[in-house]
């Protein structure tokens, strides 16, 4: 009996540690790093707050989490829960919301036509997913692919096209692309550190979501 209680105590401690400390910390770190850019010339930090559109995307993503069962809204916020538990859960949801907005901010081009193209691509995917049948695992896989694709497009493909120190072929392709689209595809050039920060941010966000899925399974 005593051993069972000790195990129950450890389990509760670990689950509480993850749910009330680790997950908010991870999601807040995503919110911090998602808007961080490093300028190419002087390596100065630039903090980009989430654009309004990313907040809309984050709301859609949160709805998707509820539909996919990654967030069990009814058990998280309930009249049967103690008030403090409800407050802690609402706080966790707030951190998930801002982490989502900043994760989108991290992989969206800063301005111009590409910003709207990427935004439309995200909106379309998230809107379609609202009407598909999902479970938590499939949802996580789909999100990892979605963010991964956007990351590769922004930080590898576009960044290499507009890079100052690229080869002549890259520069010609970049100039042609910019010229044909009358400058609407222009993208600001950031230091390579920005790509690493974004990679870490997206990784952290996905890890946080996976951890949330595990935590959810443990609770079951």
């Amino acid at each position, binding site marked *: *009996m005593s051993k069972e*209680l000790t195990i*129950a*105590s450890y389990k*509760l*401690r670990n689950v*509480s*540690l993850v*749910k*009330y*400390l680790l997950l*908010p*910390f991870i999601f*807040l770190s995503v*919110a*911090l790093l998602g*808007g961080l850019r490093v300028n190419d010339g*002087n390596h*100065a*930090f*630039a*903090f980009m*707050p989430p654009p309004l559109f990313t907040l809309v995307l984050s709301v859609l993503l949160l709805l998707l989490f509820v539909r996919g069962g990654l967030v069990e809204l009814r058990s998280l916020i309930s009249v049967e829960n*103690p008030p*403090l*538990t409800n*407050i*802690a859960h609402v*706080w966790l949801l707030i*951190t998930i919301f801002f982490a989502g907005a900043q994760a989108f901010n991290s992989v969206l081009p800063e301005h111009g036509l590409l910003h709207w193209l990427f935004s439309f691509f995200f909106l379309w995917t998230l809107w379609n997913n609202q009407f598909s049948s999902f479970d938590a695992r499939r949802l996580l896989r789909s999100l990892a692919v979605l963010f991964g694709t956007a990351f590769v497009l922004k930080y590898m493909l576009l960044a290499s096209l507009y890079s100052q120190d690229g080869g002549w072929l890259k520069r010609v392709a970049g100039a042609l692309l910019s010229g044909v689209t009358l400058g609407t595809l222009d993208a600001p050039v950031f230091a390579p550190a920005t790509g690493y920060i974004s990679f870490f941010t997206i990784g952290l966000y996905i890890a946080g979501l996976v951890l949330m899925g595990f935590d959810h399974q443990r609770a079951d």
Partner: protein
Amino acid sequence: MNVLSVTPVTHCQVELTVQQKRFQIIGLILTMVYAAAIVWLYATEPRSFEEMATGAQVAAGTYQVDQEKFNAALALFRREQFPAARDEWQRADPAQKDPTTQFYIAYAFYREGWGRVYNDQNLFQQGLEPVNRAIALAPGSLTIPDENLQLHTATELKAELEQGTERNWRDLNPLKVFRTRK
């Protein structure tokens, strides 16, 4: 089931609830402090780790001007090396939060921009920014008791700089060459 077998379980349940509550309180406090720090970072937008540290000092109320650099700048100012003095003062007060330093920076713009025949409008214009900052930062009326200066208050200096940036018919007065620098 007798009372003896129920009591330890109930006690443990209470203990577990208390533990959970403790985690919730600690988690809420720590993460809210972290969130406040993130909001502060986005609001102040520091450009480097150094600026971040200075900003944190300002927020904590422990920010102080580097007195050594301030004195070095003052020595340069008295030797009429105004751009160098301004650079040194900017290094002494990177957060631009000290009214005295901001006053001296504005004064350096005034002295460098002052001319017997005409004033350098650009330098006078640049001087307005730090003097306005000095006025905003000083709790009351800012007065600098420096015997080497003729303008001792920030409002006097501001008036002088504003007057210097204006263009009017008095600029054509040939007697203007007899005026003195303050």
